[in-house]
């Protein structure tokens, strides 16, 4: 297969972007783990990241994280097969439910992260 196969077709390109989302999200999560570890060093040396570079890095990672969420949750309708009262649940309803859960989880987590701050 030619090396640039993924640039010859829009679907191939978007597939590669979808698979690649794992790398920036993984990098951000490793930073997050470091941020947790740094809290263990004590209050004197604790400085949360706040540089412009870090914010730009987070914006880039957020783009990929959102792309992962949209593509992964959209697949739920294909992967998950449910029956209620012996009738199959429409795939569209399953996808809508997943997006609803995503919105609910985001609101709850944001409320905790902001609500427990001072």
């Amino acid at each position, binding site marked *: 297969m030619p090396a640039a196969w993924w640039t010859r077709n829009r679907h191939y390109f978007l597939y590669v972007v979808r698979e690649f*989302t794992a790398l920036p*999200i*993984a990098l951000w999560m490793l930073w997050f783990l470091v941020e947790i570890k740094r809290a*263990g060093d004590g209050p004197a040396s604790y400085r949360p990241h706040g540089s412009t570079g870090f914010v730009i890095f987070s914006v880039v990672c957020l783009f990929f994280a959102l792309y992962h969420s949209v593509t992964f949750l959209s697949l739920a309708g294909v992967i998950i097969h449910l029956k209620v009262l012996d009738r199959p649940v429409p795939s569209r309803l399953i996808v809508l439910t997943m997006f609803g859960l995503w919105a609910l989880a985001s609101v709850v987590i944001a409320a905790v*992260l*902001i609500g427990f701050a001072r």
Partner: protein
Amino acid sequence: MSAEHRRRVAIPHLFWWFMFAQGGGIAALFIPVHILVQGILGPLGIVPVVDRHYDTWISILGNPIVKLYLLVIIAVPFFHFAHRLRYLLVDFGVKAAKSLPAQVIFYGGAVVVTGVTIWVLLTTAPISLG
């Protein structure tokens, strides 16, 4: 191939696919809001965020439910990432990515991240229900 042998092969396969699917779902549902709030809104000062001050951050990190939650959202997605990145290399023609050493490196990496996450969460803040 005997039925017993097929069962032995299928169980690890089932485990890795389960971790891949759960990791993808957890990453999709929970990670974007952390990046938005803790990576962008907090550092820019748009909203107060729990990790911007040592006392609030260390306090919430001591909660056992928070520790369990952080373990799940940090460790499990790495099994998904490992699978996706290994197959991305396969798609780009890196034949070695199919090999057993590559599998050990990628999925072993996810196991290492899990171990490190457990260690960090257990050693960073004492468990406290207060």
